């Protein structure tokens, strides 16, 4: 399959890249890992007249903790996240997410920034970043701004990024003591999108009650979903079986899946209930130091 013809740009600085985007507007698409964009172009689901390849811009990849945040450069490859000792030991939710995105070869090119900027509700990082309470940093010729992840996904394949903006960094708050997270995904096979998946990140108080909790849902709606009613039901509570069952039910009610080859609406909604329960239990065990 051959994509429609396009003009290729390979800027070497952010200034050059955002100036190009400002000039080309909606006619341009940013090429990051390309593992979603290129298949869409080959299928002619996307035919951008201009492609702006940001892979030649130095400094956009990398993982570091600074100023209370884990800073993930937008061009960080999923395989780098997966193999990072920092991520494996301190961010189990991110580690588990990175391991189930597409397949190992695709993960060598696929990027964290691209996974979010694509705005696909079937992608895995959106739910995870919603659970983590992340922020997205975007830059344009008008300067830099920070977008809370809760305001980032505006519709199917649509985000708060403006045509002249490039996502440059994702910031995840460094977890407090007694925190744990988990990503539980059901997929038919490696490389498939989730039938449904649930991301949970929680922090316990010294007394053992739930101080903070984030719950994100993958591929069960037109956008990634933050299960806010389920979160509210858990805050301040002891995370016993009854509380978790109630939260799982509320998360299922927050989902809005469509029927497709992966299952019916009823099946997927019940799957959200089951996966939320599993993710909560695994996150709790980790917060208690047993995971």
């Amino acid at each position: 399959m051959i994509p429609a013809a396009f003009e290729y740009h390979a800027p070497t600085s952010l200034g050059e890249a955002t100036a190009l985007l400002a000039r080309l507007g909606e006619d341009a698409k940013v090429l990051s890992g390309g593992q979603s964009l290129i298949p869409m172009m080959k299928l002619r689901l996307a035919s951008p007249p201009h492609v702006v390849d940001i892979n030649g811009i130095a400094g956009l990849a990398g993982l570091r903790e600074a100023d209370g945040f884990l800073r993930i450069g937008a061009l960080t490859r999923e395989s780098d996240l997966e193999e990072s000792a920092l991520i494996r030991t301190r961010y189990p939710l991110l580690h588990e997410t990175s391991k189930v995105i597409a397949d190992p070869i695709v993960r060598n090119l696929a990027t964290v920034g691209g996974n979010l900027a694509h705005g696909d509700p079937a992608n895995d990082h959106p739910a995870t970043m919603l659970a983590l309470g992340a922020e997205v940093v975007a830059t344009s010729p008008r300067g830099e701004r920070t977008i809370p992840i809760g305001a980032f996904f505006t519709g199917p394949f649509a985000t708060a990024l403006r045509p002249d903006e490039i996502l440059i960094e994702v910031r995840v708050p460094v977890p407090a003591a007694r925190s744990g997270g988990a990503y539980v995904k059901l997929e038919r096979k490696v490389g498939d999108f989730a039938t449904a998946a649930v991301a949970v990140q929680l922090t316990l108080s010294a007394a053992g009650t739930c101080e903070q909790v984030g719950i994100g849902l993958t591929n069960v709606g037109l956008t990634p979903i933050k299960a806010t009613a389920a979160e509210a039901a858990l805050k301040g509570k002891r995370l016993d079986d009854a509380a978790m069952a109630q939260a799982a039910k509320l998360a299922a009610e927050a989902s809005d899946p469509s029927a497709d080859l992966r299952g019916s609406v009823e099946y997927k909604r019940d799957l959200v209930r089951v996966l939320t329960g599993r993710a909560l239990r695994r996150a709790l065990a980790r917060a208690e130091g047993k995971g």
Partner: protein
Amino acid sequence: MRVQLSVNGEKHEADVEPRLLLVHLLREDLRLTGTHIGCDTSHCGACTILMDGRPVKSCTVFAVQANGKQLMTVEGLEQDGKLHPLQASFMSEHGLQCGYCTPGMLMTGYAFLQKNPRPSEDEVRMAISGNLCRCTGYVNIVKAVQHAAATISQGGA
């Protein structure tokens, strides 16, 4: 656009349209037809090559993105007329039937063994989970990768 790249240690230059996929540059311009096109939708892994040492699906990379990169294809495994231990192991362990997925399996396996020289069966299965084989049921492919690991660790070539 003019691109310069190295394939199996040899420098190449080509004039390409930006929309040309890397796999077509390799097969049609450079006549390196060992790399196969399978699904053409980044699922099957038959087109896997190494770009700067990492396995990538060359049907999902534009040739212009390979400008200045070091590529390795299945043709680069054999050295001085001698098969790489991984290729020899695919022969001795019957790690293929029709052979269509084999170039991709070999390139994924080659990069994987450099990172993990003594993998468990589970680790091999995870590593090749982006490469589909419709003949073998994977059993002999996994055996072949582990056989190669043992051969290489014993200093065999």
